């Protein structure tokens, strides 16, 4: 790294009501990756082949999904016995972790409807302020729906029925938030 590649930035504020600007060093590491791989990208043939690897994978997602669903239920059990001493965020994380895994992995193994429904559950868990009985009821409804999809081996988006299930769960969440507070919206909304 030469001295030219390092810049320093440190300046005092122009007014006492401003925070002091922090000293930062900017570094441009040599692009060794580019030097190794060169130019030209990857051909469309290779990309199509890679996509086929994804689409033709025959991994049985069900054992994995059942494990996540079981962990989700364990998280709900913890939430039911929540006391003042418990860390609420930590308890929610025990439900959030398996829900997020279902969202992330469902679509990778052809269960796109699982991804869509679990995504809504993750959104719900990220926004709720408290784990009250109404919230737990909603989480259990998501769990029951996801379990039915997994046990039924419903791959893809589930067609019209899948869309109806998704809307029903979404409506339940909307009704919940009509009555309950939610975390500040700007934390979650990319478009705002």
């Amino acid at each position, binding site marked *: 790294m030469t001295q030219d590649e390092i810049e320093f930035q440190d300046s005092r504020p122009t007014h006492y009501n401003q925070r002091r600007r922090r000293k930062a060093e900017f*570094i441009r*590491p040599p692009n060794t990756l580019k030097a190794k791989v060169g130019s030209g990208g990857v051909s469309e043939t290779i990309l199509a082949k890679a996509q086929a690897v994804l689409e033709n994978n025959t991994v049985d997602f069900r054992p994995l999904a059942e494990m996540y669903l079981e962990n989700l239920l364990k998280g709900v059990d913890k939430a039911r016995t929540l006391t003042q001493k418990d860390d609420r965020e930590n308890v929610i994380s025990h439900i959030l*972790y398996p829900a997020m895994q279902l969202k992330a992995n469902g679509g990778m193994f052809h269960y796109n409807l699982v991804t869509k429904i679990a995504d809504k559950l993750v959104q719900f868990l990220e926004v709720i302020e408290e784990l009250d009985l109404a919230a737990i009821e909603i989480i259990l409804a998501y769990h029951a729906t996801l379990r039915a999809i997994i046990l039924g081996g419903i791959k893809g988006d589930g067609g019209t029925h899948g869309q109806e299930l998704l809307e029903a769960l979404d409506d339940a969440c909307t009704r919940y938030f009509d009555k309950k507070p939610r975390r500040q919206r700007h934390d979650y909304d990319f478009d705002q």
Partner: protein
Amino acid sequence: MAYQLHRISALVVEDNLPMLEIVKSLLVTFDVGQVVTATNGVDGFEKFCEYNNDIIIADWMMRPVDGIAFTRKVRNDKDSPNPYVPLILMTGFSERRRVFEARDAGVTEFLVKPFNARDLYKRLVQIIERPRQFVRAPEFFGPDRRRKKAGIYDGPWRRDEDLKDPDIMQHIRAEKLKAQETLRRVRQEEGLSKGDPFILQDEG
């Protein structure tokens, strides 16, 4: 000419074994020369110290050490063989605060699951073609967290004066017609319609 990906080594850190195999298969299909795997952050860091891989692809949620803690270790540990290594974090999270959390840990790129082959490829292109400068501050070390947006240029154009010259204008119009004709001919030869993208096989 295409990317010589067989010259690089990648480390994939993922606790979900089927997912680990899929990412590995994708990289092998892209012709990545060496794909080293690990199933959690502790194992991942040991492998990184051993192989000093050119890129790292890690999952967020792993136990006992997750992708965020692993990233911090890669960036800040004195034993890290390359704190500047490009690191792609895979996760199901897409909420803004999660993206910020990953960014603040020193992640280079964020890959939301589920993803397809092209999504992964785009992240690879990003780290190869547009590497980010690094910032070392008292409480942060990692890729520059700012994403520069191109502003709208409102200054004088260099050829403002040229455009007043009728000869130059005529020349520009002729060049434009020539380019349009070439484009029409290429589309006709390749059987492409107007909206179809051009795929460049060789940028070198």
